[in-house]
């Protein structure tokens, strides 16, 4: 009986610890990557050479992502000043022409799905964004309604932004990518 208790508790504790540590390794914490200003790119997304932990993490955060020749993905959880994005604030996302066949910037909730909102707007892309004469663009991101190009955050308490570049031309540096500027909500 004693030996049975010994074995059963050992296996049970081992299973719990193994599964718990695996879940933490896969889902705990953000997927870090190479920073280009506020935009982080994980070079392992779409890579066939990823080891088992990276493959599991990428599957969890970015299932069915594309290889880098077709699309490059950047996630922003901070603004261009390094402060964490806040759904209480208003941000201006602005930039010049981005070197890709087309691009999009999408807001996601903490569950990685699109944020419900009355306007049914979830992103801006290279064809929907209004252009200045010099080809540049700017749009606002906030919960509170805004005039002009506005990406609504619905009732979100937290969000992040995903920038997709399809058929990117060359390696993008931080200066090619949009600026994320907090324009109000400062205390």
């Amino acid at each position: 009986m004693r030996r049975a208790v010994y074995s059963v508790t050992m296996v049970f504790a081992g299973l719990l610890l193994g599964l718990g540590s695996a879940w933490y390794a896969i889902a705990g914490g953000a997927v870090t990557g190479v920073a280009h200003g506020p935009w982080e790119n994980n070079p392992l997304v779409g890579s066939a050479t990823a080891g088992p932990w990276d493959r599991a993490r990428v599957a969890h955060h970015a299932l069915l992502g594309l290889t880098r020749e077709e699309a490059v993905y950047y996630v922003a959880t901070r603004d261009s000043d390094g402060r964490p994005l806040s759904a209480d604030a208003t941000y201006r996302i602005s930039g010049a022409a981005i070197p890709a066949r087309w691009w999009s910037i999408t807001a996601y909730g903490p569950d990685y799905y699109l944020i419900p909102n009355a306007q049914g707007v979830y992103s801006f892309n290279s064809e929907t964004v209004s252009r200045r004469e010099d080809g540049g663009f700017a749009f606002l991101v906030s919960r509170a309604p805004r005039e002009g190009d506005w990406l609504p955050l619905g009732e979100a308490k937290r969000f992040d932004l995903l920038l997709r570049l399809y058929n990117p031309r060359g390696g993008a540096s931080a200066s090619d990518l949009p600026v994320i500027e907090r324009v109000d909500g400062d205390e």
Partner: protein
Amino acid sequence: MSERREGGLRGRLPGRLIDGLPGWLLGVALVAALTHLAAVHAYPRLLMSGARAAISEAADDTGLVHAPRPDATSRTVVRPSPDLVYSVCLYDLAAEPWSIRLELPDSYVSVSLYAMNTDNFFTVNDRQAPGGAMELLIVPGPADEYDAATAGRPLVVRSPGGRGMALVRYFAGSGANAAAIEAARRTLACGPAASRAEMAPSDRARRTGDWPGEGDDDA
């Protein structure tokens, strides 16, 4: 507890390792390590199997499903892009090669193939395809056993596993070309290559409802 300690003090070296708390902890660590490794290896395949099962519920008998443009109710795969219109073709090479054919709209479209371990092992987009149509032949063996791709003949791609999925992405752009994209989607056909001659365009059994778990109907 005292019995075990006595046994440990009195036992031989292997006995001391096995008996008592240090042995128990070692056993826990070993089970934990094996469980951790197995879980990490299995997780991507589990996710792909889950996605495949959800998609096949909505798919027609050739494994094809056309998803509506993503919105906040789309919760089958994380981070769907609201700027893309997705169609999926599940393939299974158990019997024979699988054929995918589509006519191209005037805007971006790509076909990407995924193995069940999540590898995106092949992608081709509209600018890389000759002419106004794209045709892929997915094969289980070495690709050079099949006729090489020339103009008008299929692009032959070797799948690393017997099953997988082809994800077709159409760029929705400003939304002005939505009708053209739907017309292009209706030309998407996939299925076992031997029956390709009998394959009709995809709308003969098309499901346009949301994937299971989204929306109201479960078409």
